[in-house]
């Protein structure tokens, strides 16, 4: 049976943010908005009493107002975020009563960090970063930033097999492609093949996509695909050597230009 949702227990204490393979959760304070909105195309006719709309076909995505403590240690917030106009990958994971794990909600982007002004929050020096969708990483499958965690930040030292113990059940298959983000946040001579796999029965799995990253270095990667995603999706890691810690988030594509029901 696929992992089950944990319910109404999403506390900031258990949220995590990963940027380009670095866990910045220890410096994270807050964010203003995880954008996820369509523009409104007004279809109101002259003799209609109520204004009515369709979406304009362009989804606004991005993270605004991500505030972090100015920690200049290597791999921490200032070190990773101080340069605007930097491309990368971001995953925000919503832990359900504990650290984020498979099945918990996630928001991810292939992003360009556009703004990072610094200021004060009381006696604390903070930076406030905005992440927008990166044109250089965009492809036609990039349309929905909201998905799930497929792998939380737990060290891998053996095979991780996609299956009913770690799969997410979407309730039905979808046909609008997908995106995935992988963060390798720690490694000890890791050598792995990381794949996203899907299944119609939570027992027989086929490969949906294969990451290039092999767990040997701290890095992040954005992977996309078109077409069908079966009902169950899970993360798979085939070990060749070593150990590493990776985080994987996954989002199903959304049909654009949805007509009014």
């Amino acid at each position, binding site marked *: 049976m696929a992992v089950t949702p944990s319910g109404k227990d999403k506390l900031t204490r258990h949220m995590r943010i990963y940027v380009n393979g670095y866990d910045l959760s220890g410096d994270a304070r807050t964010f203003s908005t995880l954008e996820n909105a369509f523009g409104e195309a007004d279809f109101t006719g002259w003799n209609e009493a109520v204004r009515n709309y369709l979406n304009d076909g362009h989804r606004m995505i991005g993270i605004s107002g991500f505030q972090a403590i100015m920690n200049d240690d290597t791999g921490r917030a200032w070190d990773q975020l101080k340069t605007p106009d930097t491309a990368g990958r971001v995953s925000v994971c919503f832990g359900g009563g504990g650290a984020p794990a498979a099945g918990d909600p996630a928001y991810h982007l292939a992003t360009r960090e556009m703004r990072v002004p610094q200021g004060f929050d009381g006696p604390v020096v903070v930076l406030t970063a905005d992440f927008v969708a990166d044109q250089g990483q965009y492809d036609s499958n990039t349309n929905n930033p909201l998905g799930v965690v497929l792998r939380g930040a737990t060290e891998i030292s053996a095979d991780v097999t996609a299956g009913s113990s770690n799969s997410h059940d979407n309730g039905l298959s979808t046909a609008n492609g997908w995106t995935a983000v992988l963060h390798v946040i720690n490694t000890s001579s890791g050598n792995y093949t990381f*794949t996203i796999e899907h299944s119609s029965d939570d027992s027989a799995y*086929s*490969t949906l996509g294969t990451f290039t990253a092999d767990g040997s270095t701290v890095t992040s990667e954005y992977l996309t695909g*078109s077409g069908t995603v079966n009902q169950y999706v899970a993360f798979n890691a085939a070990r060749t050597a070593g150990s590493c810690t990776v985080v994987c988030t996954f989002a199903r594509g959304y049909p654009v230009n949805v007509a009014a029901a």
Partner: protein
Amino acid sequence: MAKKKSTKTSERQKWELLTSCRNNKTGKTYEAGDIVTTADFPKAVLDNWTSITPPAARSV
């Protein structure tokens, strides 16, 4: 007496896998190019893999 329907493996419908696959019930893994039958995966799974886009299997 009616002739029994043959279920010999050689006469079973076959599918060629187009990507790596795994049956968690048997623990067996398969690679793209492998030929499988309903002895390897349920018919419903093979039908699904043939029908999805991109397909994970094709009938041969």
